């Protein structure tokens, strides 16, 4: 079974929770799902991140028993493990209520599933529902998908892979996506705008990683993104 089949089988098995209003597929599988025909050529992660609005935690928990192919992990309260071959694990991540500070972080605990709510995930906004093989996959807007990764502190190989996820999204972004990204970027505090520019700069200098988008062929695209971000600053950079 190839990765695309595993990803789609996981989405189908997780439909009971994905159908709860406000829930979004987030994280590293987004570039796979945005590839034409959901080609899913990138093996970034063996987990599917499911974003759960904090107010919907109870609804999601109530639907967990309908997911017969997963069981809760003994080690990680936010992870549900596949009970059959050919599935990815599910990682539940909390989405904050509107107006939550970006630096906020708090747990929402339940009897069967607990999760951390990250303020930075407030940068995600619901986007178009992806329809494939009769499934309806709730996706975020691409702009938020890129920005929430770019504001985060990154280091090491995991950090590089997260930045290549951004590249995977950027490669399929259109003008509207980039305008939304720039607008959201401009509303961030100085420190986080610096992180975004710093991470995008690092991305432009990354070397290829097997199974991930090739950054060398996309450097001009990243440079153009940096130019957009710098244009949104009050004082343009000397080096643009």
């Amino acid at each position, binding site marked *: 079974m190839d990765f695309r089949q595993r990803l789609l089988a996981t989405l189908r098995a997780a439909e009971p929770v994905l159908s709860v209003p406000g829930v979004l597929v987030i994280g590293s599988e987004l570039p796979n799902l945005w590839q034409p025909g959901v080609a899913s050529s990138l093996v970034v992660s063996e987990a599917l991140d499911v974003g759960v609005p904090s107010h919907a935690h109870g609804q999601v928990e109530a639907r967990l028993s309908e997911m017969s192919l997963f069981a809760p992990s003994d080690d990680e309260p936010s992870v549900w493990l596949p009970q059959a071959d050919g599935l990815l694990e599910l990682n539940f991540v909390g989405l904050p209520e509107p107006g939550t500070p970006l*630096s906020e972080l708090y*747990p929402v605990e339940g009897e069967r599933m607990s999760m951390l709510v990250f303020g930075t995930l407030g940068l995600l906004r619901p986007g178009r529902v992806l329809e494939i093989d009769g499934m309806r996959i709730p996706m975020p807007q691409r702009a938020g998908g890129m920005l929430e990764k770019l504001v985060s502190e990154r280091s090491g190989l995991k950090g590089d892979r997260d930045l290549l996820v951004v590249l995977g999204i950027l490669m399929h972004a259109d003008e509207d996506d980039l305008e939304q990204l720039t607008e959201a970027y401009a509303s961030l505090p100085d420190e986080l705008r610096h992180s975004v520019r710093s991470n995008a700069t690092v991305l432009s*200098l990354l070397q290829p990683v097997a199974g991930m988008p090739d950054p060398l062929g996309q450097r001009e695209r990243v*440079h153009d993104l940096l130019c957009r971000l710098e244009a949104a600053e009050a004082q343009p950079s000397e080096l643009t």
Partner: protein
Amino acid sequence: MNERLEARVRDVRKRWLLRSWEYRRRAGSGGVWLRLARALAGARALYVIDAADCARLEEEGARLLDVGPELHPQKRLMRIDEDALATLESAQAVDIRLSAEVLSAPCLAIVPFHPDVATRQGKQ
């Protein structure tokens, strides 16, 4: 709170604090490393050149980027266009990344993605 969640909350909060501290430190240093990396990010191609070619380009009006002298040891870093590149005898293409080869080179020439930037700066 679940122990694992509690540990992760502590870890993430620590990283936020560390990031704020680092941000203030970077602001104090003028963000030299980021500015060097940003200059490279705008490069379609990057060349190590010798001091003679560098001096000639300067005489012809190529402007040195401000970030070069802020590094230790100092570096001469300039943007050039394809026409200027064709006149350089010493130019050796290097990978565009913060490698030892790039960091140890005293003179670097950048061919930018957008040639108008090189031309405009070259005439300043």
